[in-house]
């Protein structure tokens, strides 16, 4: 009898302590958690005339670096600018019409395909729609 009463009291004390700890640690976790943990699914619209032919424009998309390439001849392509090797941001080599990753020398074509260096996969393509003079990514 006595042990069961003791057990009930201990369980009640445990529940109370858990609630108290929760009321301290929950605010602490929320305080330190990043402002928005969910990636914002915002569309990005860019003006085509801002980019020279054979040039590229870097922008932020869903919290990561992205790039829009205006290929010679007028075609456009959008990629994630994150190198598939170790996550550096690729650079656009306008003269060579290709991407270079400065970290370990990865090379990608203007279509995102691997040309050389360590990257295991092509650059991730981003969906986009062209509306006259503007491009909407996402």
């Amino acid at each position, binding site marked *: 009898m006595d042990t069961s009463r003791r057990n009930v009291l201990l369980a009640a004390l445990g529940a109370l302590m858990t609630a108290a700890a929760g009321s301290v640690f929950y*605010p*602490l976790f*929320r*305080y*330190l*958690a990043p*402002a928005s943990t969910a990636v914002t699914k915002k569309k990005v619209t860019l003006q085509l005339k801002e980019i020279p032919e054979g040039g590229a424009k870097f922008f932020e998309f869903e919290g990561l670096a992205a790039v829009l390439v205006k290929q010679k001849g007028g075609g456009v392509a959008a990629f994630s600018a994150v190198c598939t090797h170790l996550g550096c941001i690729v650079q656009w080599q306008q003269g060579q019409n290709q991407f270079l990753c400065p970290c370990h020398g990865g090379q990608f074509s203007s279509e995102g395909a691997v040309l050389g260096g360590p990257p295991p996969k092509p650059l991730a393509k981003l969906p986009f729609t062209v509306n006259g003079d503007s491009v909407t990514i996402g």
Partner: protein
Amino acid sequence: MSIPEKIYRWLDVRIGVGELAEKELTGYHLPVTINVWYSLGSVLLFSLALQVVTGILLLVYYVPDADKAFASVTAIMNDVPFGWLIRMCHAVGSNMMVAVLLLHMFSVLFMGSYKRPRELSWLSGFILLNMVMGISLTGYLLPWSQLSFWATTVATNSAGAIPLIGDELVQFLRGGRLVGPYTLGRFFALHVAVIPLGIALLVGVHLFLLKRIGISAPPSGQKDSRVRWKGDSYRYEEHPGGIPFYPNYVVQDMSSICFYLALFLLVVFFDPYIFFPKDAFIPANPFQTPAHIKPEWYFLPNYQTLKIFPSEFMGLMAQGLAMTFLALLPFVDRNPERHPLKRPLFLACAIGGILLWIGLMIWGHYS
């Protein structure tokens, strides 16, 4: 053997935790007549820990830049989840820590615990009091509100009353002729690095002295301390037959901490702005002094003293003399009698001093 027992065994074999616990906890005996006032030190340690934790958390979002400080504090209050809670705990906690510190000091005064051989404990505690005042003053500037800005202007300005070096000293404190971005930089460094290090060091000294000398028996009730200090050689004041620190007095410490926490949370949740005049909600404007700028309650007596003396220098001197007297009290008051009722002169002076201090505070508040 259960897992906690295994961990205990593992540690005990290596570093002798059992012996340590016996010496410092169960075998550490306190006077049987020990009272609730002795637990204020633990309450202070607890509130200091709370200030350190909330202060570190505030550092995550606070920007110590005169252009951005106010906005960052506003963001902590309005945008960051539970930011208001962390900031209110820090601001309310500082005020309540000063209040508990004063109570701790008064209990030491009335029970005569500052007397020999505890002069060094009193001195280290006195320096801690000043450091806590300093960390409060420097923290006051950081939100960069009208209140912060002008309170700091007035506080740093009072150093100008010191002859010869006054003007240079004011400029040195401010990092310029006026309170500005450089003042914020140095006050920030003082508030988050310099003074906290000093406080940590002195708390260590204070606790070391407490352990080394042994706790004083309260002046009333039975005398149970074995060694009466004579001044010929070092003696530890032990209390045979007293109550063990753990579990007996730890329960008292915990209940005092819980009582403090209840009061603290009452203020945080039901009247957090009790310590915030409305100028605390306006960004600092160096070109517009608000009317009736006043310091925090614990600086009001100092503020009023500066106003009632004909010259600022005399006001500063009066405060300096009073503080020096307080610091050197154990060297002045050499009578070994510790019971307050058997020290009528001391009692009259102490109560008179506290009433004067409270009177100046009220006068300062309503002037």
